[in-house]
């Protein structure tokens, strides 16, 4: 007993050391989304290219959707854009955009210049839908299944590595679910 007490500080030190060392390699920005497993929020917003066209969450149902939050003011969106254009060629899913707190003309110009990977972009001028999605920075991408349930959320730009490690397994799982 006495011996145990003598070694207690060492044991506490080692346990603390292990815990804190692990903490060093955790990314504090990597927040779990409160929306995974929940349905896509209800919205009714105009399309970016055609303000007359009303878009709702119903448009996302019936297939696997990727919903990408972007804005022309966001440098990382510029970085991931070519990869999105590449992704859009796939017929395994459909890619949609949420144009977040942006200038309509600038956004349209961006799509003309860099290519438009999206089926349509939702024009979220005041960031209302983004807040409902729990978005805190662009770009963010959500994977929505055919029932309109959010299955995954990824914060940050997508590139080939991210796609292979994070998205591919989820998409495959959704495809198996049929």
């Amino acid at each position, binding site marked *: 007993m006495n011996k145990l007490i003598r070694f207690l500080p060492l044991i506490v030190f080692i346990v603390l050391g292990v815990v804190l060392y692990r903490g060093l390699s955790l990314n*504090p920005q990597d*927040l*779990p989304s*409160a929306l995974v497993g929940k349905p896509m929020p209800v919205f009714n917003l105009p399309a970016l290219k055609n303000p007359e066209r009303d878009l709702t969450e119903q448009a996302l149902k019936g297939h696997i959707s990727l919903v990408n939050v972007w804005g022309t003011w966001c440098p990382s969106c510029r970085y991931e854009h070519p990869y999105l254009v590449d992704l859009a060629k796939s017929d395994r899913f459909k890619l949609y955009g949420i144009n977040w707190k942006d200038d309509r003309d600038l956004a349209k110009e961006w799509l003309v210049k860099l290519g438009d990977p999206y089926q349509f972009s939702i024009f979220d001028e005041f960031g209302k839908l983004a*807040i409902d999605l*729990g978005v805190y920075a662009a770009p963010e991408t959500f994977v929505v299944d055919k029932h309109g349930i959010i299955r995954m959320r990824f914060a940050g730009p997508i590139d080939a590595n991210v796609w292979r490690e994070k998205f591919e397994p989820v998409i495959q799982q959704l495809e198996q679910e049929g």
Partner: protein
Amino acid sequence: MNTKLVAKNFGLSSLLLTFLLSISISMTFSVDASPVDTYQFDNEVLKTRYQALVKELRCPKCQNQNLADSNSQIAIDLRREVYNMLHEGKADKEIVDFMVARYGDFVLYRPKLSKVTYVLWFAPAVLFLLGIIIVIVMVRKRAGNANKAELSADENQRLAAILEQVNDETVQQSVPATQVSPEINKELNKGSE
């Protein structure tokens, strides 16, 4: 010489004055340092509730700031959202639930009591109690040991020698007890206990 001293004093006090002034100025400004929205409130209660809420809610983007302190786009949006909901007549709890539903428990600076946060809430109290128990046990143990302490044969011999010496001295020279050297006095007292 005298003027030099005065000048020196004057220099010091002006330095001090400048220092104090700069502190007070920086404090005045630091009060206003957090971003200010020009929101108009219907009444003081709404304003107070708003201020309490934006202090309580964490900015999801800039993680060590609350909504009130942050200037990021998302914090501005969320402040506006809080403001709008307050004016729609929503309760504080509804607003907090709204944020948690979107951004998770992470937005709360005061984490909710749940299975995951039991450790967070109770560990300090448990550790404190544990500390007190350990201290009590140790103190008791030590007190017990002190009572049990006995003089070794060698120490007994020394004590007897000292006592004898003292007795001799008091008899022969009738030295008052107060004049006995403090060291011996101590030993004497110990023996009589």
